[in-house]
């Protein structure tokens, strides 16, 4: 962000340096902190393990409340953050919503009045939610189970990714359970200043996760950001204790890599599968260090030609990139990555983050797949 926007003071000044002043007097809170993408690259770069990103996030929550966006922009932020509510409302009328959101006049109105950038393509809503599909699947034939945290994107926008997850698990001999209750992990709420609601949803999710873990099931996910939020931001930013279950929350790619490489599970791969893929490491993936597992899992698939891209941020930072005032910055930040993708000329880009997916598809035109989708396409059903 610093490289493209001189108004942003940079992680050092926005984080620990600014914190010294904020502790003395909250009036020192700098509104430019809203430009922090929460990519956590500052924490990855810090040689002394200072939680710079958490410090900035916490400051925004603690001191930024008086800066709550008013008027229509406030409505926009609330709508972007309320993924569960908006998703539930949109999915019964999905075809209409999808069409309407693509109309030029609608985009212009949203751009002008709400401040949702007209260049953005909204992820399409699915007419049938993942959960509705899943409840019709019979999982009773299995004796071993994993629990799946599907997240908002899979449920409201892209059930296929969840269906692929179920297909792989079933092929590996595992049945799938859902959490007793699942709400959005809260990442969009946090970044839009709705910390209290995020905390409430986090507590509800942890409660369900504890029940699944007590039943001896790992809680698997297919989104790197949801995973990172539940593992690290719950305790560090929201103050929700999760040490008892943190190790049981993980990306499906990590779980699958470990089980496949130890020989505990076996998958039958198609012989005729061919795909040229480049892998993009999402920022939160890099913070967790788990790109290792997704990359090695993709390398295990016969027929996949994989190139790993240099680790550059795509710029979108979730709902941040949908806002008109940020659009220009997000595209500048992502430009290095887009160039890298275009020169590699792949059939597909693979990444574990859905918002990176939207940004890359919109900015390069290359279709993006989650590693789980590639694996599902490569195995015999």
């Amino acid at each position, binding site marked *: 962000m*610093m*490289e493209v926007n001189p108004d942003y003071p*940079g*992680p*050092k*000044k926005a984080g620990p340096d600014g914190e010294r002043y904020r502790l003395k007097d909250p009036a020192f809170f700098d509104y430019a902190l809203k430009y922090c993408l929460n990519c956590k*690259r*500052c924490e*990855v*770069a*810090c*040689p002394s*393990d200072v939680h*710079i990103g958490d410090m900035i996030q916490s400051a925004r929550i603690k001191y930024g409340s008086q800066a709550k966006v008013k008027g229509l922009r406030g409505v926009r932020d609330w709508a972007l953050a309320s993924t569960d509510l908006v998703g539930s409302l949109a999915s019964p009328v999905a075809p209409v919503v999808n069409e309407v959101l693509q109309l030029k006049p609608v985009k212009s109105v949203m751009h002008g009045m709400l401040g949702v950038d007209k260049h953005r393509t909204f992820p399409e809503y699915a007419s049938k939610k993942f959960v509705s599909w899943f409840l019709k699947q019979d999982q009773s034939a299995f004796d071993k189970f994993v629990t799946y945290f599907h997240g908002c994107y899979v449920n409201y926008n892209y059930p296929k990714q969840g269906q692929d997850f179920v297909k792989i698990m079933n092929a590996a001999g595992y049945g799938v359970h859902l959490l007793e209750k699942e709400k959005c992990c809260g990442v969009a709420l946090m970044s839009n200043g709705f910390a209290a609601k995020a905390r409430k949803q986090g507590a509800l999710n942890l409660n369900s996760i504890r029940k699944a873990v007590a039943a001896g099931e790992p809680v698997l996910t297919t989104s790197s950001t949801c995973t990172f939020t539940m593992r690290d931001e719950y305790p560090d930013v929201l103050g929700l204790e999760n040490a008892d279950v943190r*190790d049981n929350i993980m990306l499906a790619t990590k779980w699958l890599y470990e089980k496949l*490489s130890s020989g505990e599970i076996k998958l039958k791969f198609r012989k005729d599968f061919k795909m040229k893929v480049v892998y993009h490491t999402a920022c939160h993936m*890099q*913070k*967790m*260090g*788990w790109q*290792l597992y997704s*990359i*090695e899992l993709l390398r295990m698939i016969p027929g996949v030609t994989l*190139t*790993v*891209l*240099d*680790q550059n941020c795509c710029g979108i930072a979730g709902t941040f990139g949908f806002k008109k005032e940020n659009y220009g910055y997000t595209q500048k930040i992502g430009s290095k990555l887009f160039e*890298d993708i275009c020169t590699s000329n792949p059939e597909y880009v693979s990444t574990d983050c859905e918002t990176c997916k939207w940004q890359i598809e919109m900015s390069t035109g290359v279709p993006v797949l989650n590693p789980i989708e590639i694996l599902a396409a490569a195995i015999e059903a």
Partner: protein
Amino acid sequence: MKFDVIIIGGGWAGCTEAEKLAEAGSKVCVISEGLSLASVRYETPYSRHAGLQKAGVTVLRGDRAERGIIEDGKVTGVITRNLGEGEPLTADRYVLATGKFFSRGLLSDKEHIWEPVFGADVDYDPDRTKWFSQDFEADQPFMKFGVKTDAKGHVLVDGKSIVNLTAVGDICNE
């Protein structure tokens, strides 16, 4: 996770070693602490990591080797900051390329100088007054300190050779 060679340190020396090994067909992992970021850190071989990854080398950027596990005179794994205690990275051979003081390959207090990953023996004068020269422009003796190796290039820990651990670049003594 198992590799042929794990290189600890993604600076110039580590990258050069990784390029050579990858070209020869080895499965290589580079653990590189740094990540270029304005106002926090600037990392010189930034551009070289991109090339290494395209050549199939696993580069763990922004991760750090916290501790090497040594059993019976051999390194059996490395624990990293991001992956944690439960998930050691393993290889047949390990290369230490963490550089000197600025890159934290060597750490020091007022009496000691040590190598933090493996606890390798460091070649330095116990008399602190001999670590540096008062003449600012003179060659500073502390810049010649580094880890001890045997005739075959194996790194020494507690006076014993570690048969699958070598050192390259600035971390070596002169």
